[in-house]
């Protein structure tokens, strides 16, 4: 059972790992740049091509993938608590489906990248409101009803996405497919999403112990003084907003939101006070490493980062699962 001090060490270790991943992301690439030069570019305002590459190209992308990984892992952990289902991930309630419909529709008509981002975020919010409204319809708001509504809305979005892909011209098809797989190469504006990530963590951390209590079931949690309905609404809106920010930034990167919370849970237990920040940092680190690998291992070919996360995540997850027999 992690105490406050040992939790501090876990978080410090993960912060260090995240910093190392970011340093690698800034240093590695077609133009290798030494860590000293990276440091100068970031903190001493150095001039020259190397410094420009670090500041203008690699930094936005590295921050974008780190933030995206953190958003998805945190959203996944929250969804798993909300639905009390280990198979829940950030996409299970159709938020990413809504984002994909919005983004692909914008791409289909040849909109600018800003408009694609805006359409993705709008689609995600629309899906969130539709699921919320339908699941809430008669006043009851059970996990099963929420889950089924989300799955159905996601399936509907999937059909719309397939339709749009079949209508798209060849030139646009590739960028659409890359968006769907999760592609960080176009992510140049990570700062709003970073603000969402920080705000999300700040909002949810005071309720972390309430989330532990919620795991004991609704009646028990209420009797222990948790205001269950209010907490569920908070979880739903927050997880949806985090997911919407992530898919708007990088696209539907798979596996991070499902696997990272589980890996962290295997390692440090299910205390949400530690699990939530740890999952955020681990998700960011994993996606940063995966994206750096995606653009360097087969350079000059850039792989979609979503493919890499699956290739890394699936064996790691299966290994941990086999090591932890229930």
């Amino acid at each position, binding site marked *: 059972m992690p105490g406050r001090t040992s939790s501090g060490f876990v978080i410090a270790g993960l912060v260090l790992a995240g910093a190392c991943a970011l340093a690698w992301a800034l240093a590695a690439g077609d133009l290798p740049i030494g860590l000293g030069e990276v440091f100068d570019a970031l903190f001493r305002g150095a001039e020259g091509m190397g410094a420009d590459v670090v500041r203008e190209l690699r930094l936005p992308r590295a921050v974008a993938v780190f933030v995206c990984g953190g958003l998805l892992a945190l959203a996944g952990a929250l969804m798993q608590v909300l639905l009390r289902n*280990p198979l829940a991930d950030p996409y299970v309630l159709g938020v990413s489906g809504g984002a994909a419909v919005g983004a692909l529709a914008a791409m289909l008509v040849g909109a600018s990248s800003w408009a694609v981002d805006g359409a993705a975020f709008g689609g995600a919010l629309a899906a969130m409101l539709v699921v919320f409204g339908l699941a809430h319809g008669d006043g009851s708001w059970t996990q099963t009803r929420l889950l089924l509504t989300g799955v159905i809305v996601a399936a509907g979005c999937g059909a719309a996405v397939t339709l749009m892909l079949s209508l798209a011209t060849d030139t646009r098809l590739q960028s659409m497919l890359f968006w769907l797989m999760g592609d960080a190469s176009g992510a140049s504006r990570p700062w709003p999403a970073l603000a969402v990530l920080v705000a999300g963590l700040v909002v949810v951390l005071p309720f972390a112990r309430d989330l532990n209590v919620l795991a004991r079931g609704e009646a*028990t949690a209420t009797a222990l003084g948790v205001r269950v309905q209010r907490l569920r609404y908070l979880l739903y809106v927050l997880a949806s907003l985090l997911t919407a920010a992530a898919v708007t930034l990088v696209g539907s990167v798979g596996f991070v939101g499902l696997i990272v919370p589980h890996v962290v849970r295997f390692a440090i*237990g299910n205390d949400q006070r530690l699990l939530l920040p740890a999952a955020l940092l681990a998700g960011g680190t994993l996606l940063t490493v995966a994206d750096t690998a995606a653009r360097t291992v087969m350079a000059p070919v850039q792989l979609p980062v979503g493919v890499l996360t699956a290739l890394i995540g699936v064996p790691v997850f299966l290994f941990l699962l086999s090591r932890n027999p229930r």
Partner: protein
Amino acid sequence: MASTDSSLVLLEADGIALQVGARWLCCEFSLRLAAGECLVLLGPNGAGKTTLLHTLAGLRAPTVGSVRLGGCPYADWDSLAAARFRGLLAQQQPDHFSASVLQTTLIGRHPHLGRWGWESAADVAIAQAALAEVGLAELEGRDILSLSGGERQRVSIATLLTQAPRLFLLDEPTNHLDLHYQIAVLELFARLRHAGRGVVMVLHDINLATRFADHVILLDGKGGVLAGTRDEVLQADHLSRAFEHPIRRLDVDGRTLFIPD
């Protein structure tokens, strides 16, 4: 319901009636539970015992009438303060994620900790003592998902003991327990009650109710409620009518037993 005069009243219900959908579970009745008393809710499946218990726990409002905890309506209670006064053992204990037995038990300390508080060594000692009370001291490091149904039920009871409320509301506390632990758990709550706590529990076993109750509420599933002392309510004809099955009373070695014919 009569109670020993003015000693601390933990729970009162005035003229409450419960409706679920179009069906009335019980007609208007009142009850009063003082410190040191044990009330048992009996009745056939679907009669509304759990709904009544949840109403008494403040989880839902009665359709008619009012419920007061420690003299105040639930609406006037801060939810955490109420959680320090009354605790609920729910019927279903869903465990979907791994957690150690001790960590699960410590959840009972939630209403005693501040928003940013972490469990102290004293809280851990309280949880360990609660686990020892239900015979789980050796299993504190085990994963709850690896436990049997009866062991999980005892973890839930230990969590409730860790919560340390003055009023215990128990929904079928003997669920999944073997004979030894059924008696051990009910005797544990009998000791707590003699130490000045209050107990309201749903039971299925009439003979356990005979052994541990001061007061009984018998629901017949058709809206009828019979409330009174144990000896007033637990009579063969009342029970036969409520359970729609002939039940006979036997007196053996000074003990009263009810058996279905």
